[in-house]
């Protein structure tokens, strides 16, 4: 199974780093979509089938937390796996994200963290290591 991924971060460099990291995991990737804020992320979800969302929190316009809340309110997207990749240091906010079903990876991250979390959330990648 190949994964269609949406990467939402206001930094183009960070989006590129995350996509490069996804490439390095060796997982089979389908379409990769990019958005620079929460609203663009929602627009991408309207237009494309996405298996996994990787999102930052602090972004201009609609931030990542608001975007995730809206994703969970939509019956079409409520089950999509979401990984937050952020510098967020507040346990209060991280717990609120966990309550929305999102997993959290702290920046700076390393590729193995992202690979392990994607495997745990989607099951994709395990078949390659069996």
């Amino acid at each position: 199974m190949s994964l269609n991924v949406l990467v939402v971060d206001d930094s183009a460099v960070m989006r590129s780093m995350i996509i490069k990291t996804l490439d390095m995991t060796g997982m089979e990737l389908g379409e990769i979509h990019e958005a620079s804020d929460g609203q663009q992320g929602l627009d991408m979800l309207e237009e494309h089938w996405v298996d996994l969302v990787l999102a930052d929190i602090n972004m201009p316009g609609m931030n990542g937390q608001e975007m995730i809340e809206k994703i969970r309110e939509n019956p079409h997207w409520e089950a999509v796996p979401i990984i937050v990749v952020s510098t967020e240091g507040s346990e209060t906010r991280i717990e609120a994200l966990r309550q929305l079903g999102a997993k959290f990876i702290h920046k700076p991250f390393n590729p193995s963290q992202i690979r392990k979390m994607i495997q745990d959330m989607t099951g994709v990648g395990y078949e390659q290591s069996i």
Partner: protein
Amino acid sequence: MSNQYDQILSDVARKAMESLAFLIEMPDDEPCQQPSVSAMIRFTGPFNGVMFIKASPEILQVAAVNMLGMMDDEEISSQFCQDAFKELLNVICGNFLPEYAGNELVFDVAPAEMLDCADLPAEFESLELIANAKLTLDAGKVELVFFAASKELANAG
């Protein structure tokens, strides 16, 4: 009090520069250009503040090349160089803030912005200097300054 946060800021910045941009700390006497490119990032929440960074110009290009995994001779736009620089500041601020404020308070961190001059904008004179750090890296020098409104004032409010 300030020295404690100076050390923490220095440690946070060193770790971010190394792990995100593969910029390694060097001896302080290493010859390199003085910091002249600057950016800042504001945060709001229980109390407000700002982190300010000033760096040698070469750092922007080297950081962007390293973060994107490019070859040294590949062309990279100034926009990407600035974006990499701002992302480094974002990561340093995001990791330092809970060290200073604790990990319960919630802050909104605005997008980092480049500054036209290397001097700190006057609007921050009313804030308290909490920490500063200077690093000499293999691509140049970096200075960081963290200002915040008084935590006591925020608690009273």
